[in-house]
């Protein structure tokens, strides 16, 4: 099976450790993963801010880069949702606007092959115990697109519960949005910050050392709020927890 890592532009630029963790984890599970160097961005920020036409070339570029792989794995619920939920819609809209079937035909092959990391582990590889060791108290925030667009369900929890040394504690109001929302965080910064502060207070009330999620964009917002509110908690991507073993655990 030819598996490609779609890391996302945010992770590539700001969170390379998440990418290294995915590679380490998948390699340990016997998957040979490739990182096509031509990859850039799925176009989500463009699309969701209202620049659908600007997002189209990015979607085409994504399809060009990834079409030949059997599976495309991404450690981001929202970028996964962009491909799986919104690429088909972009194709339909192009058709409805009389621009023919080309865009739909180009995008169609990558849609069903794109998996968010925890989905890939549970559904494709069929594992819940990935052999990780992580001696910390952890609370899990299910990000909105992972939760509602992709329907990740309890996959991330099952993976976390199988990690040795990890104590998973319930996050109050877990399913409420953290307030990131891409450009929303800047356009409506007051509301966004208030949502972030509530999320962080809820997380703090659990007494966990670590708040984990499957999306670094949300973690950037939550983590930035945590340091500003001086909570002492750490935001950690789930890939890094699942990748860590005895020696590497921090």
């Amino acid at each position, binding site marked *: 099976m030819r598996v490609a890592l779609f890391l996302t*532009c945010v*992770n*590539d*630029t*700001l*969170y*390379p*450790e998440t990418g*290294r963790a995915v590679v*380490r984890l998948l*390699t340990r599970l016997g998957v040979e*993963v*490739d*990182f096509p*160097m*031509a*990859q*850039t*961005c799925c176009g989500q*920020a*463009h699309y*969701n*801010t*209202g*620049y*659908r036409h*600007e997002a189209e*070339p*990015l979607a085409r*570029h994504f399809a060009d880069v990834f079409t030949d792989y059997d599976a495309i794995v991404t450690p981001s619920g929202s970028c996964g949702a962009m491909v799986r939920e919104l690429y088909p*819609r972009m194709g339909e809209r192009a058709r409805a606007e009389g621009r023919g079937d080309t865009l739909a035909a180009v995008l169609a092959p990558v849609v069903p092959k794109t998996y968010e990391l925890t989905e890939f582990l549970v559904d494709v590889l069929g594992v819940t115990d990935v052999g990780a060791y992580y001696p910390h108290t952890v609370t899990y925030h299910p990000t*909105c*697109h992972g*939760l*509602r*667009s992709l329907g990740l369900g309890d996959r991330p929890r099952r993976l976390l519960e199988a990690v040795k040394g990890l104590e998973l504690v319930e996050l109050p109001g877990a399913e*409420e*949005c953290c307030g990131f*929302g*891409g*450009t*929303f*965080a*800047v*356009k*409506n*910064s*007051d*509301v*966004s*910050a*208030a*949502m*972030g*502060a509530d999320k962080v207070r809820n997380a703090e009330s659990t007494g966990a050392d670590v708040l984990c999620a499957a999306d670094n964009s949300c973690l950037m*917002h939550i*983590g*930035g*709020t945590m340091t*500003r509110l001086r909570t002492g908690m750490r935001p950690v991507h789930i890939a890094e927890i699942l990748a860590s073993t005895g020696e590497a655990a921090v």
Partner: protein
Amino acid sequence: MSGTFVGMPAFPVAARQAVGNETLRGNLRHATHTIRDKRARAVAELDDWAALREAGKQIKDHTLRHLDRYLVQVEEAVTAAGGTVHWAADADEANEIVARLVEETGESEVVKVKSMATQEIALNEALEARGIHAYETDLAELIVQLGKDRPSHILVPAIHRNRGEIRDIFRSEMSEWGRPAPEGLTDTPAELAEAARLHLREKFLRAKVGISGANFVVAETGTLVVVESEGNGRMCLTLPETLISVVGIEKIVPRWQDLEVFLQTLPRSSTAERMNPYTSMWTGTTGEDGPRTFHLVLLDNGRTDTLADEVGRQALRCIRCSACLNVCPVYERAGGHAYGSVYPGPIGAILSPQLRGTKSEIDASLPYASSLCGACYEVCPVAIDIPEVLVHLRERVVQGGPAVRGGNRVVLKPAKGHAAERAAMRAAQWAFTHPGALRTGQRLASRTRRLHPRTLPGPGRAWSGTRDLPAVPAEPFRDWWQRTRGGKDGAK
């Protein structure tokens, strides 16, 4: 739309006040969380919820697709039952019709049962200008009216008020409108309710004209339906001699039997009740029983324009249950007033910019009043994909494009103030379709990382005012990959 909301600032500005008001946020948080938990339980009781939701969606879509036919059917059925149907293209027309109808009765007072359509068109203000006083009789509406306030929730228009504030409003304002509040009124719910009851009873017994809205209009029989919890609506609908109902054209359902679906989904979604306490239905006039004269004013006011939009038209399925408000994290912090219309929350964010267009500052900002978390779509009993419509309207705001306004096909210009953003988006698109350029940018960011400020200038200040920025790593992932081929040379 409503005159009361004209000149509202953009959503972020209006929301800032609410975010800073701890009491308001506390009130809203408590109210919305209580009702959302109850709703979840009420919905979970039904094992066919998904089927009901789909049925509601289908019925509404079917009706909207054949609205021309059903509107004619409504007119025929209402006329046959002794009523008169009037058509209003916009707010001014509707207000003129209603004012004329009231004047023809020779009355200068009317009682009203909760009708969002009449608030949408600012009917009370229009009547007042003609010397006609309109009294709201729904308890929450009464509180809003007495407090010279605006509604902030679809179902609980006074959700932003606490009991102490309500007592003060009753004490100081009731006497100006009719029977004063009892001496020594306290803020216990029973006393407040009794004060309102006495005050309203006097109005019900005196008024010769009632004005209502409707939750549904059944095309095959010409029957109007109002669902409510207090019973005040029933008084308004039965006691006056003349009843005038102002109803948006999207409220039609084809058959009597279709109510079966909505009378299950609406109460459970809105008040978390299995069934609402009062369901009133009336068909034209009925001899000596109830109003002798019945008028139905069918209101367009932007609805056919909305219907012309393939993506946005689903907003017309809305049955105004307010479930989307109660789960919305943005509504919970920003409060209802920030949305600048009688329709707040997620549904308001997609309905107002369609009914009113995206020209004003507030309407252009509403599609952005969401983090696109999707909670509203998940609870909506008629499955309106609110995030999809939000993104669609964002596109209209930043790019312009074809639309229908006032029945005419037009090409909208982009709203003002998005030029810099558009340029940034285009630049980003260029970098993202040229991986080499992206890489150069990343490397530059990494090399200069020690120089990066932790707070940002320009629009970025909105971020760094409350959140720290992540540090730029020494090496972007793609450079690590190239150097190590995925760690194969041992470098992890």
